[in-house]
Structure formats: structure tokens, C-alpha cells
């Protein structure tokens, strides 16, 4: 800080002014007139120097006041620095917290994007994974067929769902989609539909929720593409309140 330097300079200036005063002491001149004139001149000069000293003292006080304020600022800056250090410590202590998890996520994403990660998930491996998934889905279809075959026929529920499907497909709302079969048991239905084209398929799927068989429940489906853009989809819909078998 520059304030102590200024204060020292002013103090030295004050001393210099006093030195001038001492150097001009009229008692050191020779002769009574000279002494008298000298006293008069010296008197006015002393007053001038005194005034100068008073100004410099006032300035010095002001500088010292500024110095004290500077010290206060320095104290405040020190406190801020301590606060900052404390916050940094707290952030470090939160190393196991959300921020680090975010960082971990970012790093994981970066790692995934890296060429190393891409190499490890090579095209061949992805193809293998796809083939394995197709096999898993085929096996799951067999599991569902097995479950359906093993269930008894619930006269009330199964007949109601089968009838509702037949009625729904007799109307005009499902244009382009035909019900091929509907077989329900006690907790599961197998529903097979044929679509004339992708548009009919899309329209059917869009409003599948309006069919009682699919209301408030889940289903598994498998679609087989046919000729001329048509397709056949087989749905396995669980009875409301029942679950589909877990896919292994």
C-alpha cells in the first residue's frame, strides 16, 4: 500500500520546515537594527511556517486517517479471502455430492464419445447384441404362448374381451385393419391383426387405447411385414390388474 510512504514524506517535510525555521533564526544576524528587522521578518516568517506546519499536520492527519481506513479495507479483504477459502473447502468437502455426480456424468459421457469407447462398442458387437435381442424377443413370445396355453378360459372376462374386439372391428373405425384372431384365457389375450398398409397400421396403433382389451394395461407386440406394404401384428395383452411375464 502507498499510504505509509506518503505519511513518511509529509513527516519529513514537516521536519524540513522546522529546520528552515531554525536556520532563519534572527538572533544569529549581527547588529541591533538588523536584529530588530530580523525579528520582525522572522516573526512573519514564523507565522507563515507555523501555518504551513498546521496545513501539513492537517494533511498528515488526513493521510493517517486514510491509512487507518486502508487498514480497515485490508481487514475486510482479509475476511473476504477467508470466506472464499472456506467456501472452496466446503466445495471440496462436497466431493461426493451432486456436483461431483454431475462431473462424473459428464466424464462418463465424454468417455462414451471417445474413440476408445466407440471401438469397444464396435459395429460387430452391436450386430451381435441386436441378434441376441431378436432371439430374446422370440423366446419371450414362446413364453407368452406357453402362458396362454396354460391358462384356463375365464368365461366372463375372456368372452367379454373377445366379443368387444369383434364388435370394434366390425365398425368402420378400423378401416384397413382386419382382426385375424382373438384368444383370451384368464389373464392374457393373444390378438392378431392384419394391416393393409403402414397408414392403416399407424391409425390402428394410434387408437389402440380405445379397444377394451388394451385399456389400462400393458401388452407385448410383434410385427411381421407382409407383401405389398401390408403387415401382421400379434399382441399379447395382459388383463387389467395383471402383469405380463418378466422377459429374461
Amino acid at each position, binding site marked *: 500500500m502507498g499510504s505509509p510512504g506518503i505519511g513518511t514524506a509529509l513527516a519529513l517535510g514537516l521536519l524540513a520546515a522546522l529546520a528552515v525555521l531554525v536556520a532563519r533564526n534572527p538572533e544569529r544576524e549581527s547588529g541591533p537594527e538588523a536584529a530588530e528587522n530580523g525579528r520582525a521578518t522572522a516573526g512573519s516568517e514564523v507565522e507563515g511556517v507555523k501555518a504551513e506546519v498546521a496545513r501539513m499536520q492537517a494533511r498528515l492527519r488526513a493521510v493517517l486517517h486514510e491509512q487507518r481506513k486502508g487498514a480497515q479495507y485490508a481487514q475486510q479483504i482479509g475476511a473476504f479471502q477467508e470466506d472464499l477459502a472456506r467456501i472452496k473447502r466446503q466445495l471440496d468437502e462436497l466431493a461426493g455430492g451432486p456436483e461431483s455426480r454431475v462431473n462424473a456424468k459428464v466424464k462418463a459421457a465424454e468417455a462414451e464419445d471417445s474413440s476408445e469407447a466407440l471401438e469397444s462398442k464396435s459395429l460387430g458387437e*452391436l450386430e451381435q*447384441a*441386436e441378434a*441376441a*435381442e*431378436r432371439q*430374446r*424377443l422370440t423366446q419371450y413370445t414362446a413364453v407368452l404362448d406357453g402362458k396362454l396355453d396354460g391358462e384356463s378360459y375365464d368365461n366372463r372376462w375372456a368372452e367379454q374381451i373377445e366379443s368387444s374386439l369383434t364388435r370394434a372391428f366390425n365398425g368402420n373405425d378400423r378401416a384397413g385393419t382386419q382382426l385375424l384372431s382373438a384368444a383370451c384365457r384368464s389373464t392374457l389375450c393373444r390378438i392378431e391383426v392384419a394391416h393393409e398398409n403402414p397408414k392403416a397400421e*399407424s*391409425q390402428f*396403433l*394410434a*387408437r*389402440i*387405447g*380405445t379397444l377394451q382389451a*388394451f*385399456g*389400462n*394395461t*400393458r*401388452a*407385448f*407386440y*410383434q*410385427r*411381421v*411385414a407382409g407383401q405389398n406394404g401390408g403387415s401382421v401384428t400379434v399382441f399379447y395383452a395382459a388383463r387389467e390388474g395383471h402383469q*405380463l411375464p418378466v*422377459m429374461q
Partner: protein
Amino acid sequence: MTHQTARLILAMAIVLMAGAAQAADFKTYPGAMCQPGELTNASNIEYRFTGEVFNTSTEFSVLVVCPIVRDSVFTPPGDLRAVFVRFSKPNDIPATCTLFSRDQFGTSGFMDTRFTSGVGNVVMGFPALSGVHIGYYVLSCIVPHAQDDRPSGIVSYLVVEGE
């Protein structure tokens, strides 16, 4: 508060707690992410600059398709833990949504269909749905018609995905 709403809030709380305990990815999408599912009546779909999608027709329902970005493409753990669709409804006409989990070519997968009636801010909740390895998710909804000048629509949808 209806029993259905209370149950959904409870389910949301359970899912959120489960998500906190296990690794889960939460994303909320604005309703305006949804696209027209068919050209018929598409002109009745209104996208608000505040992020909602509404059906302004007082006669017809509209179909919208709402995308879901799948972050974790391998199963497990990338299954859907839950989906919550927030509707703004001026009448008691049910909204219907189907949540699809499809394989990469869309030939097979799982689906779940839910209805919700009620008036005002209504939440439709989907429980966990199996994902298909490397496949994708999508939500399709039928938004019921408006009541006078009060449209019906999707405000937002929350997706909880395992990771």
C-alpha cells in the same frame, strides 16, 4: 383432491424416492415437444409459446406423438421407470395415451395404454415398462376436444429412465 390424483402423487413420490436411491435419469419435456400424429385435424393443434400443446377443436380429438429421448440404450438398466403426463383439461372427456417401447426397427416391443378423466390439471401415470435393447420409446396421446374456448392439452411430461 381425487383418489386418483392422490394415488398418482404417491406413485410419483415413490418413483422419485426410488430414483434417488437407484441411478435414474429424470427429464421433463414441454408438451410442445409433441407432434401431430396424423394430418387430419392437425390444424386444430396449437403450440403455445409457453410450451404447451392444445387441441382447440370443440368437435374432434387430436392425436399427438410425443418423443422421448432415450439416454441409456442398453437394457438393463435402461428401462423406463415411470412416465407422468400432465394434462390441462376443461372437461371430463378422457384423454388416452399409449407408451411404446420398440426395438430399433419398430417391429416388436412393449406398450401400455392409460386413460385419464377429470377436469383441470390432471396427471396420467405410467408404471415401469421394459425397454428393448437398443430400441426407443415414444408416447402417443389422444387429446380430447376443447370446451367452448377452453382448449384441452398436454402441459408437460416427465420421464424417469433407469441408467
